[in-house]
């Protein structure tokens, strides 16, 4: 198996597997976050956030998720850096507009934007909950973090943060537009018929993620 890890196909396999894992996480994340918009008292979201923060499965999944991000980024970077060395003399003129999509050619840059966004996002919420002093609240006699106020407060008061989150969601959506079908292709789960289906599923998924995560800051900004 040692050879597999170091082969071009093997490295892409790990980028894909971790990518697919992160796609599942995004769906859970979006489902949970959408609760922000369905109860303006914040109880619903606080309950969900409390459950996510305390139940043992999520305690295990948290470091696994972190590892998923780290491996995805490291393997993608290794693959990209190697690929950059494969054309020492560049073309004077390159015209790829008919041959491939813009998103497929710019995955590393889209990924870099998403990574910058992820860093800011972690500072905004994750770091506050984990290491800072989030506002407390008692619901039904249980003391928990008032995550709802933390999120809604930031989105209601800071327009630049809202813009950043919408941009982050759009970049993520563009990254996923190529990422979804590409992941299946790289692990060998595609053919002529399934490629069309996977590309369609990928586009729909990318739109759901980009629009879904954009709506939340806009909801707080407008209402």
């Amino acid at each position, binding site marked *: 198996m040692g*050879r597999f890890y170091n082969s071009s*196909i093997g490295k892409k396999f790990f980028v894909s597997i971790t990518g697919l894992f992160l796609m599942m996480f995004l769906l859970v994340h979006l489902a949970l976050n959408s609760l922000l918009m369905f109860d303006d008292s914040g109880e619903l979201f606080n309950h969900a956030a409390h459950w996510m923060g305390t139940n043992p499965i999520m305690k295990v999944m948290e470091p696994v998720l972190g590892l998923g991000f780290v491996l995805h980024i490291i393997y993608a970077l290794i693959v990209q850096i190697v690929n950059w060395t*494969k054309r020492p003399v560049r073309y004077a003129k390159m015209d790829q507009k008919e041959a491939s999509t813009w998103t497929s050619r710019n995955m590393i840059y889209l990924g870099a934007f998403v990574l910058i966004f992820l860093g800011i996002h972690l500072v905004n919420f994750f770091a506050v909950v984990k290491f800072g002093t989030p506002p407390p609240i008692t619901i039904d006699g249980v003391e928990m973090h008032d995550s709802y106020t933390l999120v809604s407060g930031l989105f209601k008061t800071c327009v630049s943060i809202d813009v950043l989150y919408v941009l982050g969601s759009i970049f993520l959506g563009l990254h996923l537009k190529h990422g979804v079908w590409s992941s299946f*292709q790289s*692990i060998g789960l595609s053919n*002529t018929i399934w490629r069309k289906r996977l590309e369609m599923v990928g586009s729909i998924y990318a739109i759901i993620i980009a629009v879904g995560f954009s709506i939340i800051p806009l909801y707080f900004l407008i209402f």
Partner: protein
Amino acid sequence: MSEKSINIKVKVWRQSDAKDKGRFETYDVSNVSTGSSFLEMMDAMNEDLVNSGKEPVAFDHDCREGICGMCSMYINGRAHGPDTLIPTCQLHMRKFTDGQTITVEPWRSKGFPVIKDLIVDRTAFDKILHAGGFISINTGNAPDANAIPVNKVDSDLAMDAAACIGCGACVATCKNSSALLFVSAKVSHLALLPQGKIEAARRAKAMVAVMDDLGFGSCSNTGACEMECPKGISLSNIARLNREYLVANVVD
């Protein structure tokens, strides 16, 4: 289509040998019939160069009917130029306009070093084939026809993959200069048939290992190779190779 005569400028890569740094030179070519092929235009240009005492531009070509896979030019930013499902020899001057400057470059890849002008060394493809692009059989009498049944679906897929002429357009157009479309076509056309299936795992591993060693990048699934391939080799072959390679590594 009515034939016209156009005047063009050809901005072409000149490099005297593998060690030369190389540079672009621009030549005027006049009275080119739009009905002529791109290589005929190159011939006319070379004739002018020879007549004026200059060295003609070296380029690969052989059959000039889209079969051999020798011609290999990167024209105006596209492998085999601005048309689909053709190699350079089947590109026609009607795709260009009067007064246009046409940029002609050799394939660019670490795996395909330039030998001279537009000629690149594609020995790397041969080396990949040597590693596994064959089936091992003891020679003897020719087997009876239809002694080994092959279903129609697999036979068609194998034939589609076998259409690869090994020109290297996939490498030339790929942003990573990956050879995966070529390798996957060669792996697929053998692995799909009963005679080739036996060695499929060993073949996939051996050919990928050599490919990785020879200066080609990895696949980003942009699909540019499939679009520029003169034979329309499908990206589904790459999925098949990825699958074969994964299974081959899990099995041992």
